[in-house]
């Protein structure tokens, strides 16, 4: 399964770089990437628009999907996902705040987003630990946390309208106008965090067995949960810092991959990273070329494609276990 996903990822990236308002034939693409076409419009489009955007899609998709895998695992709840339990909106709030207070400090945005996302996961974890809440109460609490953060974003935007340039894009989630300068700091967070998530796969497997069994196998469940949630916050926060509040990737990709490869965490994490990257890249491509010359924010395409799919998944699995 992984090789197939890897090929799909490369294919999606290739399509995303070559297709758009101007389509670039493979020959020109190769020459542009290897620096043989300097100072031509094609080279500019590829270097300053397509390449950052495609990298952004791949990174954000992988980060959000893996963040979802971790959150669903740690909270042992199939409905938990970064956009549902307030991780994304926590990150969003910090992005809005830092843009309002220090608009020029772009390099710190991913860090701020990480802190916001961390606040989101820790709040939900705290509620879970303190109340011993059931899996359903937990999601409700997460939704409440998410609403509070969203209200915070709205408040910031109301008082400082210029804080989030293109606010609706941010809210829906979109990657238009992404530059390498904005992407790089986030990439430095996402790549190590993905590696860390993969290296914690055995711990995630043990957590699947339930807390008592995990602990009786020598896992310090509390510490592992905390470390894992910090990783998931770093992933979601970094993704939100440049792509906005993208929803469905973190919820549906882990579910699709669980169907395809099972729950073994190393495989599931790797497959979800690739699957998320493919899904977001293809949705972004569709958002760019479906209504030329207009462009949709990718969040809309993602929701329109992902929403019905998720409903189908729920109906199809009626009565069955999702997690």
């Amino acid at each position, binding site marked *: 399964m992984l090789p197939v996903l890897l090929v799909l990822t490369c294919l999606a990236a290739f399509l995303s770089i070559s297709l758009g308002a101007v389509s670039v034939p493979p020959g020109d693409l190769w020459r542009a990437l290897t620096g043989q076409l300097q100072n031509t419009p094609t080279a500019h489009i590829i270097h300053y628009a397509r390449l950052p955007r495609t990298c952004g899609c791949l990174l954000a998709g992988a980060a959000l999907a893996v963040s979802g895998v971790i959150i669903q695992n740690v909270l042992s709840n199939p409905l938990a996902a970064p956009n549902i339990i307030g991780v994304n909106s926590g990150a969003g709030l910090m992005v809005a705040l830092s843009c309002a207070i220090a608009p020029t400090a772009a390099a710190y945005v991913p860090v701020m987003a990480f802190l916001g996302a961390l606040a989101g996961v820790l709040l939900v974890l705290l509620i879970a630990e303190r109340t011993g809440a059931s899996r359903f109460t937990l999601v409700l609490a997460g939704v409440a946390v998410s609403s509070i953060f969203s209200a915070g974003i709205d408040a910031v935007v109301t008082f400082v309208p210029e804080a989030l340039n293109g606010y609706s894009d941010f809210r829906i989630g979109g990657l238009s106008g992404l530059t390498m300068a904005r992407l790089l700091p986030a990439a430095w967070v996402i790549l190590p965090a993905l590696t860390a998530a993969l290296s914690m796969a*055995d711990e995630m497997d043990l957590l699947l067995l339930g807390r008592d069994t995990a602990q009786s196998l*020598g896992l310090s469940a509390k510490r592992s949960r905390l470390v894992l949630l910090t990783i998931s916050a770093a992933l979601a926060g970094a993704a939100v810092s440049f792509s906005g509040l993208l929803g469905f990737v973190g919820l549906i990709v882990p579910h699709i991959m669980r169907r395809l490869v099972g729950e073994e965490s190393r495989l599931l994490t790797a497959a979800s990273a690739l699957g998320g990257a493919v899904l977001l890249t293809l949705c972004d491509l569709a958002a760019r070329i479906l209504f030329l010359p207009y462009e949709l924010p990718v969040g809309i395409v993602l929701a329109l494609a992902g929403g019905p799919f998720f409903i189908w998944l729920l109906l199809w699995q009626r009565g069955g276990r999702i997690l």
Partner: protein
Amino acid sequence: MIELKDLQVGYPGRLVLEHVSLTFRPGQVTVLVGPNGSGKSTLIRTVLALQPKLGGDILIDGAPVEQLSPRALAQKAAYLAQSRNVPNITAFRMVLHGRFPYLPYPRRYRPEDRLLAAQAMEQADAADLADRPMTELSGGQRQKVYLAMALAQDTAAIFLDEPTTYLDVAHQLAVMEMAHRLAKQGKAVALALHDLCLAMGTADCLAVLSDGMLCAADTPEEIYRSGILNRVFGITLCRVKTEKGWRYYYE
């Protein structure tokens, strides 16, 4: 050897058991019995440091349990929980995780771990299930895999909480036989059981929990003579002599 000295277990504000002094000896099958809610599971969870004790001492090979790291404890005692999750991973992978407490950093399973996991599956009569996903197995098969995982942990003590629930009679007897086999290998085996007859027929030492305390801990013979089970459970325990020893029943 695991010794409990004047142990108090329960939850903050709710004492479940007090003055429990009991020893789980190597080579012995110790069976915990008691009515629902008498604290069998709570006791086992406390001994394994899955919940904090309220008082008294738990000594594992002479060392207080709170001085052991989770990893060190997991190398000394294995646990088969009463409620078991069924993840969608292969049976072999499950059993392999029984080797988790022994992994050096970075945690990668080594060939010897795979070998031990395979042997544990052999021992638990689950070798044929290795490649099957847990979600596709029957209750009895899942039980065997969980048991194999506990065996792969290769500990001197093993605690099984209600290992026979949801199992048909043949599987129940197989689990009891396994308990004896493990004790013969020198392990300290502890079981919490609902079925009194199974408990009486299996135990080397029977520990009776009721009314917030350990009422008795003795051989089935002595327990039978004392009539304590009749008082605790409100039944009349009887027995008949067969060629394989005493068979117990109640009315």
